[in-house]
């Protein structure tokens, strides 16, 4: 029970933090240096290490959202909306885009089509849909100073969906920067986005600093998701590095930070107890958990063994172990994200309830002869470790399985999963990973659904028919056709490919002090910091 005095003290400290009086000693949060008024302090998922969103995924993309602008962006409903593009025309296989007037980079130079084309070329080599783009696009070229053209190899109605990639967005860099090969990192951060990066105040592992870009030309539509008016409404943003999740919540409670961009599990339950903290209500926000099976070697080179895994999974148990509360997860038996229009229950019926007996039977039918099942467990992440351990326990329910759990650090796991040797000789059989809903949203851009054998992701699922169904999905024009094709594909996935084993959906969200800021936008991942205002 807080007494009045401590409540007042907290409010005082909170407002001190918000207005950031400068110099020595005033207020718990106004410590380090004379701070400009109007500084938003946020905690993001991890430390910023690289500045180049093309070479490095993760938090670098969040950084890129601040300093770069994009051609198209997804709004709250995940529809594709133009950002830097003013308008465009679509021919048979030719797309012609025109940029909005007045777009400038932070160094004062104008944004031209040369910058866009160079950025496109570099991005398309490394993007999550890179393989797809290579098969789709014939050429990309400038067409005047503010227009550019992309010519496809064949008619493809879903092209804009691919271009507006929510997982690895295409950011527009200066031509000089984009000229670097896609395997060499760009070390500057000069974009045309709503914020400017302040390199000399970047303390790696401690703090990243951005200031408002006064020359940013925002759109007129209201901000929604990543689209609309992305104008910054604070003078300065600081990303504070706090590695410990419990400390992050403590810092939010004292007002030392205004928002935690990604909060999960136990910390959500903690934050709920404080009435000043608001948790964004965003049903699509979270992590889909998957078990990846090595399909190169026994037992999972046999479809029955893979289906046996589907029978073993008890999503309630897995998710309860991972998140701690039924309020923090949802079951999802589809291979697509359950909030995607293409999710369905097609083919999922046999696997809704866990059935270890059926699993044992299927393993036997697959001719399992005691080959080692090596499950790699990365010990550093408590949530992933919990899931792996519950999965391990599930595997143990089939006595004939020769299960070998191996714990290792993340670096070792990354190395070992690239190893195509048999599990017993330095390879692996199973590991657990996660993906945002945007990575499982439709057949074409499904990050984990590729079944093109050697070129697929780790696990190397190999199913030509499924792959054909998946890639041709993009040629369909009507909604009804697309949904039907998605259902058919999922049926095939359940029957034959089993590209991965869905383990459930963990909800995450953004937490912020509603008495200190407002305007936080709801997105499937990476809440942007434009549109946020400080309340004083």
């Amino acid at each position, binding site marked *: 029970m807080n007494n009045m005095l401590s409540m007042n003290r907290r409010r005082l400290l909170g407002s001190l933090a918000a207005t950031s009086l400068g110099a020595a000693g005033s207020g718990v949060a106004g410590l380090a240096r004379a701070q400009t008024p109007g500084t938003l302090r946020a905690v993001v998922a991890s430390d910023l290490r690289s500045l180049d969103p093309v070479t490095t995924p993760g938090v670098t993309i969040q950084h890129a959202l601040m300093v770069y602008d994009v051609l198209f962006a997804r709004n709250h409903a995940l529809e594709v909306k133009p950002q830097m593009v003013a308008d465009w025309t679509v021919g048979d296989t030719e797309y012609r885009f025109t940029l909005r007037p007045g777009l400038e980079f932070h160094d004062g130079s104008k944004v031209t089509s040369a910058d866009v084309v160079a950025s496109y070329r570099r991005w398309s080599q490394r993007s999550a849909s890179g393989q797809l783009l290579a098969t789709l696009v014939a050429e990309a070229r400038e067409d005047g100073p503010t227009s550019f053209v992309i010519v496809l190899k064949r008619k493809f109605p879903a092209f804009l969906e691919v271009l507006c990639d929510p997982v690895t967005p295409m950011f527009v860099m200066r031509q000089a920067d984009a000229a670097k090969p896609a395997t060499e990192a760009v070390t500057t951060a000069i974009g045309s986005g709503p914020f400017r990066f302040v390199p000399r105040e970047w303390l790696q592992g401690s703090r990243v600093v951005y200031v408002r870009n006064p020359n940013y030309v925002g759109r007129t539509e209201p901000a929604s998701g990543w689209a609309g008016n992305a104008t910054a409404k604070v003078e300065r943003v600081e990303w504070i590095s706090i590695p410990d*999740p*419990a400390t992050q919540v403590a810092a939010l409670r004292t007002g030392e930070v205004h928002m935690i961009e990604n909060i999960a*599990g*136990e910390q959500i*339950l*903690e934050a709920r107890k404080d009435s000043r903290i608001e948790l964004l209500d965003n049903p699509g926000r979270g992590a889909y958990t998957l078990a990846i099976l090595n399909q190169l070697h026994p037992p999972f080179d046999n479809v029955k063994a893979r289906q046996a895994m589907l029978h073993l999974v008890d999503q*309630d*148990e*897995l998710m*309860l*172990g991972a998140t*701690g509360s039924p309020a923090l997860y949802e079951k999802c038996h589809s291979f697509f994200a359950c909030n995607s229009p293409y999710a369905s229950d097609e083919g999922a019926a046999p696997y809704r309830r866990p059935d270890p007996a059926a699993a044992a039977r299927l393993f036997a039918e697959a001719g399992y002869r005691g080959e080692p099942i090596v499950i790699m*467990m*990365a*010990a*550093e992440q*408590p949530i992933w*470790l*919990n899931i792996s*351990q*519950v999965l*391990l*326990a599930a595997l143990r329910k089939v006595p004939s399985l020769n299960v070998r*759990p*191996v*714990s*290792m*650090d*993340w670096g*070792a796991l990354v190395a070992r999963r690239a190893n195509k040797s048999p599990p017993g000789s330095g390879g692996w059989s199973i590991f657990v990973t996660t993906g945002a809903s945007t990575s499982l949203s439709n057949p074409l851009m499904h990050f984990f659904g590729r079944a093109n054998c050697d070129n697929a992701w780790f696990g190397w699922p190999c199913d030509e028919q499924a792959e054909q169904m998946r890639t041709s999905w993009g040629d369909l024009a009507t909604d009804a056709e697309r949904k039907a094709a998605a259902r058919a594909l999922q049926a095939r996935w359940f029957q034959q490919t089993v590209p991965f084993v869905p383990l459930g959906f963990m909800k995450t969200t953004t937490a912020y002090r509603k008495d200190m800021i407002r305007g936080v936008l709801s997105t499937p991942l990476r809440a942007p910091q434009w549109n946020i205002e400080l309340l004083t």
Partner: protein
Amino acid sequence: MAEAAGRARLPVRPWLDRIPRPRSLPVSLAVATILLFAVLAVAAPLIAPDPNLIVPRERLQFVGVRHWLGTDGLGRDLFARIAHGGGISLTVGLSVAVLSSALGLLIGLVAGYFRTADLVIMRVIDAIMAIPTLLLAVAMTMLAEPSVLVVVAALVVPDVPKVVRVIRADVLSLRTRTYITAAVASGTGPAGILAVHLLPNLLPPLSVQTSYICASAILQEAGLSFIGAGMPAETPSWGVIVAENRQYFVSAPWTILFPGMCMAALILAVMVLGDSLRGRYGAGAHAGP
């Protein structure tokens, strides 16, 4: 002189006499505690359920009839995990402590007493101290699959130099004492001096170090397991239990409190024993200036 007579008697006593007979309550309690944990560890498979049985629906339960000490975040029985874990922590702690102490004592004695050996040995010790434990542990668990042996080895290597430095410092100080000079003058060889005169005087500070190493080994092992460079999967040492329940500190503090209390009790017992050993040899063992 009295000490000379005392010293002459020391090495002649049969080893049985050297076992400290508990002279006070704290020491009795300490011995009892250690025996209790050892017995518990041995009996665990008989009296406790499977420590790795995961039942998420029963997660984070407090003390109760079904689960004597409650359950952790995955519904595993805490009493089972603590009972099984005791054996592992004891093994790790004692192995590391005994091995490091023995090696450290030997090397420290030689380094402290022989000037030329000192220069070389201490440079090697400097080198070993400079290698971070973390890197060593990660490397070792890569070379060989994680196991208790690997963890013990990874912890012994950085601890030996610490013991060496303590022993060496004491030897440097002791060897200037008159009785040493007297012994040298009377023709006692280096081996004799090391064994008869120096060794008994080093056991008191060594026992302090040993108990500290035992304690820190148990804790360090937790740190290594925390990042995946420690115990093999499904090995519930106390350190692992504390580390994996770290996230439940606010919602279920008993998951950390119980294993933590056991660790504290064990460490206290080890230290009290260490002190009593020192007491046995302490009074009168040091001679005059």
